[in-house]
């Protein structure tokens, strides 16, 4: 049921061209934040308007679209964005990671490895990795152009001297192709190793902050660390209660008011797939 009143994928063609130019520039300079004239979308800023505009600019009628939020296809905002594109672009949708050509995500990278030809679109709240060290955009842009990242290393070092660890658990900063420090969006640091050398195109859209950036396929991405404190992509030390997976990122679910809890895959498609092929965790019914 495409809404005929609106252009394919909501945005007019001029706007999509403008966004595609920003995407191409982003791909040409991996990790660099390209300013773009973000439009007001019919969902609120902070709810994925950057991702939605990037998806709208790359979708074609032949695409198969998947949307996840916190790894899940059925969380409310994922449902809402999926139905937006079903309505305005009439594209086929799927929950299967392997079948999707464009995947829009908030806060996760799917567990199943992506392949060439796929596009992963991230929703980004604060694209600037230096923002919480320096609130001024005019300053942080200067720092990027001068490759002046000392402040970030000092922050990480202070973490270690205070806590013994780098106390950043999500939105863990990375260096792209030994040049730009980039915010990978609030994915858990567990997902960081999947950013680099990925066969898929990764696009990052920040609507409110009017920035687009990108990682072309097989880009070198290194999580910031120190030789004596190497990066550690940790996760909850449990297997999934439903499918028994040992190596997937887990959500903790409180099951009763007596402190009972279970751990389940945050990637619902991955978990369901494993259960369908006979894997069982200890809490599986």
């Amino acid at each position, binding site marked *: 049921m495409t809404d005929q009143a609106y252009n394919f994928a909501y945005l007019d063609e001029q706007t999509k061209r403008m966004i595609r130019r920003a995407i191409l520039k982003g791909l040409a300079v991996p990790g660099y934040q390209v300013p773009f004239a*973000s439009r007001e979308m019919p969902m609120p800023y902070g709810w994925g308007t950057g991702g939605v505009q990037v998806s709208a600019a790359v979708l074609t009628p032949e695409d198969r679209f998947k949307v996840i939020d916190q790894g899940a296809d059925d969380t409310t905002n994922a449902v809402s964005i999926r139905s937006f594109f079903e309505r305005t672009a009439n594209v086929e949708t799927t929950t299967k990671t392997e079948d999707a050509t464009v995947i829009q995500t908030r806060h996760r990278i799917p567990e199943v490895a992506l392949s060439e030809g796929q596009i992963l679109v991230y929703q980004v709240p604060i694209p600037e990795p230096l923002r919480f060290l320096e609130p001024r955009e005019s300053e942080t842009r200067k720092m990027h152009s001068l490759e002046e990242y000392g402040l970030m290393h000092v922050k990480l070092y202070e973490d270690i001297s205070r806590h013994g660890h780098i106390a950043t658990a999500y939105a863990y900063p990375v260096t792209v192709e030994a040049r730009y420090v980039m915010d990978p969006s609030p994915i858990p640091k567990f997902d960081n190793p999947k950013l680099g050398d990925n066969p898929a195109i990764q696009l990052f859209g920040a609507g409110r902050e009017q920035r687009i950036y990108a990682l072309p396929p097989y880009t070198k991405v290194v999580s910031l660390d120190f030789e004596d404190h190497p990066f550690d992509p940790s996760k909850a030390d449990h297997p999934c209660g439903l499918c028994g997976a040992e190596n997937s990122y887990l959500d903790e679910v409180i099951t009763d008011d007596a402190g009972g809890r279970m751990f389940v895959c945050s990637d619902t498609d991955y978990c369901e797939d494993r259960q369908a092929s006979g894997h069982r965790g200890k809490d599986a019914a």
Partner: protein
Amino acid sequence: MYVAVKGGERAIENAHAWLAEERRGDLSIDSLTVPQIREQLSLAVNRVMAEGSLFDPDLAALAIKQARGDLIEAIFLIRAYRTTLPRFGSSAPIETGKMACDRRISATFKDLPGGQVLGPTFDYTHRLLDFKLAADGEVPEGPTAPATGADVPHVTEFLNQEGLIEDALPDDTTPRDLTREPLELPADRSVRLQALARADEGFTLSMAYSTQRGYARNHAFVGELRIGTVPVEMEIPELGFSIEIGEIAVTECETVNQFKGSKTEPPQFTRGYGLVFGQTERKAISMALVDRALRWEELGEDFEGAPAQDAEFVLYHADNIQATGFLEHIKLPHYVDFQSELELVRKLRREATARTQQEAAE
């Protein structure tokens, strides 16, 4: 179980259905019509048009109805709709000197050409609840006088004749369009004024108020406040001249600010400027004060570190659609990031406890 809840889709549909019922309210009460809102809640309509950046009283009234009277939600509806509209071109600059004024006052001169015209203002009303309105609300017809039809000159022009106020030189460069280009700093005055014109009324008011209380005080007088309608003209390339395409109501405020002079400028009065769709005078005055505060650099004043002087702070936080979206997004699920924080805090606590125990043992 919240996480594994299936049927988010049905939950959303049901929530929307409930919302629609709540919006309608008690069915035994007549439904509000859009013309009623347009005519009787016109100041709300004006605010929605101003901050929505779209002059269309009917759409603004519809948005207010749909938003259950939540004006920021209504502004959001208008902004999202505005995204889908094709752009045919730009109008010629409006001539506020040719405004048909409903209201025109100056706080700097007792009388002046064009006169002091109070117009429909709350200013001298006593704020006593009028219980007659609860009964019927019919009002007797007000007295009228014939319109003079003459142009009403700008007050600041009188000061300019003596060279007492800074020149506002005409500038023919095409201003940047904030709705088509990303905001980049430093922002020139035209960009700042665009951002302020659509900025949240409450934010702009508080920023302006802070300058009055001493955070970059700029001694503003309302040189002139005028509200009325102006024709909008557009040049049609095929015709080679401009034709009138409609009329809009605007509020314009020019402040006259005391200025002792700086290293680069002589002592003279300086200007702050506000222009907003509709009758929106609180916003227009606020805008003029904030505009003046933001001009510290071009006037060679000191940066006092006041929030209202800080263009980056003001421009990045003035838009209520950006602000409310980002504020409210923390309602969305964050359990993935929260989980990673949980793991981290547990780990740090384990280590801290182990350290304390070890120290105690020693």
